[in-house]
């Protein structure tokens, strides 16, 4: 019984601490990135990939 309660207490505490930390981290993330133009990176990358793929395609047939 004591063992079971110990596991439950440590278990639920850990689950809440860890998922709570994940909340904080994600909120921080949102604050950092919500101001920036997140589209910029994407467009640049898409172009790079398109170039690489086109080359690969033309080359590997």
């Amino acid at each position, binding site marked *: 019984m004591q063992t079971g309660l110990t*596991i439950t207490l*440590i278990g639920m505490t850990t689950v809440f601490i860890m*998922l709570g*930390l994940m909340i904080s981290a994600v909120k921080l993330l949102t604050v950092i990135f919500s101001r*920036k133009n997140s589209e910029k990176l994407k467009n640049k990358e898409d172009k790079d990939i398109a170039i690489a793929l086109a080359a690969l395609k033309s080359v590997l047939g």
Partner: protein
Amino acid sequence: MIFLTAIENFWISTGIMNLDIKTLIMIGISFILLYLAISKNFEPLLLIPIGFGGLLANIPIAGIAGADGFIGIIYGFGIESGLFPLFIFIGVGAMTDFGPLIANPKMFFLGAAAQFGIFFTLIGAMFLGSLSMFDFNLYDAASIGIIGGADGPTAIFLASRFSERYLGAIAVAAYSYMALVPIIQPPIMKLLTSKKERQIKMVQLSEVSKKEKILFPLIVLSITILLLPTATPLIGCLMFGNLLRESGVTDRLSKAAQNELINLVTIMLGLSVGSKLQADKFLNPETLAILLLGLIAFSIGTASGVFLAKFMNIFMKKNPLNPLIGAAGVSAVPMAARIVNKVGQDADPENYLLMHAMGPNVAGVIGSAVAAGVLLAIVPVLA
């Protein structure tokens, strides 16, 4: 003479001469699983391989689940080693959009609360184990509790480490209850909420940027590394798959994880798990107890999620949660979220809760993996 000897030997090696009643019952149970999968659409992707594996494993003489039998070999390769559930998690990660959770990170709490079913059931299994009629040690109790996590791969991973002898019953319980979500959860959800609560509409989720989605798996893994290394195989594979998905530069690999990898491993994992449905391992009071405890785990998990959602509403007067979404915290992705949506629409046909329920739903996957990590860390110390 030689002919008579041959025919006698042949006859005593037929199935008719070697099937005992227990084996026939197990074959019957395997057929029931196949029936439920095909006719009732109960998690067919898993229950058809599991049911068929059970069928093959119970064939006398053939020894298909033995050390040299083909399913026995696959079992050793993929389940004993822990590889198959981890590969499935890579595929699940590649299939999962954590966007709804990133958009509303408070949902993590609901995915945490629903894990209470795991620990409650662990205590219940320990209690039963203290009775002389059930043979459950602490390792078994932990593995039975994890059924409440409503995550097949997590349950199989933990049971393969802690309680191989009950792995068949545990996996069957886990997948059966995941399939029974539409039957198990709604009464509990309705019992614990008023119609008015079920009618609560939630505010639209905001867009999530690509960078957030890329960083999310790395952050979740980093926190797990810092606090709970024993959970990192499960969380690590889930987040690896998710990074393949979200990075935007590994589409080939993401698609391979979502298709080839998860499909091939599902076939093999299902057959392997089914091979644990052998008469002498399955037909005992413990299996009945596991099925009962699993049901309790599931129900308590569902209730805990709903309760925490109601509790959180005390502090969220302005934009309250619809407490139904707490039930999705058990995971059972995406069925539990769909059920939340359905129960919500029963109360108000204009209430669309699906996306809101996906947050706790995917948080529940992380939550159970964390719970499994805790058990992997402390059960060996206390046993």
